[in-house]
């Protein structure tokens, strides 16, 4: 396999940066979309033994294509076993057996709280979003949370109209005050950068810029004034292998879903 640098999209960089954070020892609760791409990329590259769980009840699944929904037959066919949904939420998620929960959302604030419920007033919404689904309890019960979202000033907002999933509340210590014993969001992997909660304040802080991305570009995609870490690193560019495997995965997926690749 060639190791010549290849050009890549920002979305590919996001998936690859997220995938790199995962290890063989992780047990991941995977959502659809960007998280699913990242987790399966990790499995197909450096973390072949990673355990992937989808909330439809499929334990230790190894899909060859990305599912369109969290309950595609592919997930069950390639799973070690499949359990009912009440058991999934009771024994496996609430049971504390998940190391990493992957979440996305329509909106995020500076303390990594997420909104996927409504824009505008709840009773008379401007935009009705799908709602929480598994997210509120994923956010509370996994050992830590990785968030993947593409940046944009309508997504990274100063104030959320609705908190669907709890991140760090209004800052350091809020999780502990609610009795949460899990770490909450520890990484936000975007298409432009990686953010982490500040050790003192829990405010999201940019710790790595993806190759070729400037601070101004990141700030332009964010509705609040961003903090940057003192030691800001540059994400390693995707390897040719990472890009090839990711693109193969997407091409197989599109064919399987009846969409021209």
């Amino acid at each position, binding site marked *: 396999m060639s190791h010549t640098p290849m050009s890549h999209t920002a979305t590919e960089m996001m998936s690859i940066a997220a995938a790199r954070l995962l290890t063989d020892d992780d047990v991941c609760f995977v959502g*659809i*979309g960007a998280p699913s791409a990242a987790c399966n990329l990790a499995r197909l590259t450096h973390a072949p033994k990673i355990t992937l769980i989808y*909330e*439809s*009840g*499929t334990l230790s699944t190894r899909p060859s294509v990305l*599912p*369109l*929904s*969290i*309950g*595609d*037959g592919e*997930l*069950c066919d390639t799973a070690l076993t*499949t359990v*009912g*949904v*009440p058991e*999934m*939420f*009771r024994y496996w*998620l*609430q049971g504390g057996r998940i190391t990493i929960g992957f979440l996305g959302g329509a909106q995020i604030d500076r303390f990594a709280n997420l909104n996927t*419920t409504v824009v505008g007033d*709840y*009773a008379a*919404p*401007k*935009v*009705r*979003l*799908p*709602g*929480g*689904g*598994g*997210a*509120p*309890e994923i956010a*509370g*019960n996994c050992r830590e949370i990785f968030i993947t979202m593409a940046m944009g000033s309508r997504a990274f907002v100063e104030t959320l109209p*609705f*908190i*669907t*999933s*709890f991140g760090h*509340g209004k800052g350091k210590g*809020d*999780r502990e005050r*609610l*009795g*949460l014993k899990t770490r909450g969001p520890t990484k936000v992997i975007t298409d432009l950068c990686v953010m982490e909660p500040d050790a003192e304040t829990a405010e999201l802080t940019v710790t790595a810029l993806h190759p070729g991305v400037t601070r101004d570009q990141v700030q332009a995609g964010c509705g609040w004034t961003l903090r940057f870490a003192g030691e800001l690193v540059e994400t390693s560019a995707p390897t040719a292998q990472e890009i090839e495997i990711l693109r193969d995965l997407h091409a197989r997926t599109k064919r*399987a*879903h*009846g*969409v021209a690749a």
Partner: protein
Amino acid sequence: MAEFVSLAEGIESVVRDGCSVAMEGFTHLIPHAAGHEAIRQGRKRLTLIRMTPDLIYDQMIGMGCAEKLVFSWGGNPGVGSLHRLRDAVENGWPHRLELEEHSHAAMANAYEAGAANLPFAVFRGYKGVDLPKVNPRIKSVTCPYTGEVLATVPAIRPDAAVIHAQKADREGNVLLEGIVGVQKEAVLAAKRSLVTVEEIVEDFGPRNANAVILPSWAVTAIARVPGGAYPSYAHGYYKRANDFYIAWDKIARERDTFMAWMKANILEQGPEVFAHHAGLARQAA
């Protein structure tokens, strides 16, 4: 003991105007044919209960069957919005829709409690989030041993549950395999239940002793509707028609394209079209 009925008879006796109904299936085995039949019969003022309303409730809401929706995730999985649900919530079309919104964990626990004949479910959830501010049915109890405060929701006890399964045997026992979701709980929690099945067999044949089987005496009615889960899927029979889920986005986006599609594909059709659809989905796979 379960009674064998036609789909029309089953919907008529199990899903009545004004009742609460859970049509379940977690992506897999969604009882679409039964939803279509309820639309054809002009069912009204239903409380629709489902973790993921999906296309089945988008269609029923758009056709004015529902006065209330109890749910935890209302999107078109992997595609985007449920436009008919949004139109009802954002614009009150075809009429106002009351929402009772939960998380998946809450609903899964509420079904489990319903099946277990308990009045409420206890779980560790809803910490720090806004849903309890807009849903007064979310409450709490204090653990009598540790003092921990845990979230509660009322048990789900629907008037009717409707599910789709792979097989029934001649005695009316029902077999589900693959992703089994909350269907067992929905049936056991409900007063009445209707199960549509791919086929009726003499015997389930060799099977693992721990497959999900609903005994005949826990089911009200069974109707054979081959393909009845399409465009969802039936493990071992046909695959999910992901292309239809993608196509639905365009159909449902506008009221007129939606109504035209409903007229041509539901109002003027019968349950026999599902075998045809599923056949095509099987060939495409």
